[in-house]
């Protein structure tokens, strides 16, 4: 799966995106474990970050599939 990082999130990851190997579907918690291992400083932001799966906000039940494009969405500030 591909992870996309924006705004404050990207300032911490210093990456716009990265691929993480995954052969099996992941829950949000499993995904976060993986992300925080790579970028521990995201832990503080986690409560404010929403996950999006293939361009739509994920719900609590969303399962993330291999091949998905997953975005970490920090609080938005458009307009």
């Amino acid at each position: 799966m591909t992870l996309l990082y924006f705004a404050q999130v990207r300032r911490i990851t210093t990456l716009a995106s990265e691929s993480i190997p995954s052969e099996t579907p992941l829950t949000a918690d499993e995904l976060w474990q993986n992300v925080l291992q790579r970028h521990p400083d995201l832990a503080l932001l986690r409560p404010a970050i929403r996950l999006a799966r293939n361009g739509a906000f994920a719900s609590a039940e969303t399962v993330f599939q291999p091949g998905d494009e997953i975005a970490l969405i920090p609080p938005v500030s458009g307009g």
Partner: protein
Amino acid sequence: MRLHVQLTPEPIPATPPAPAPGPETGAFVEFRGLVRGIEGDRAIGGLVYEAYQPMAEREIARIADALAADHPVQAVHIVHRLGPVPVGEAAIYLGVAARHRAEAFAFLAGFMDLLKKDVPIWKTNTLPAA
């Protein structure tokens, strides 16, 4: 509802290609959100915007559809600028054509509230004051 959405690094023109009002259009409202010279209490020269573009476009369309169910409007034209936007220039333009003004006003106010809640567009930086 006819919906046109555009995210663009170009300046938003003074007269965007707004929805052409038809003979059934009684209200045409346009909104521009302009970059102010003060952010917090610091003078700035502008703001830099970034988007998760495909999702931003989808969210804008989803929000517009949801609002139009409550506030039927005829045509909506939305432009959000990306990249650096100098003070005094528009970061966002909304044009709304509707039969009656109440629908257009409610749509416009509701859209801006939801935009600032759900659309993945961010102010990522400030430009130094001139």
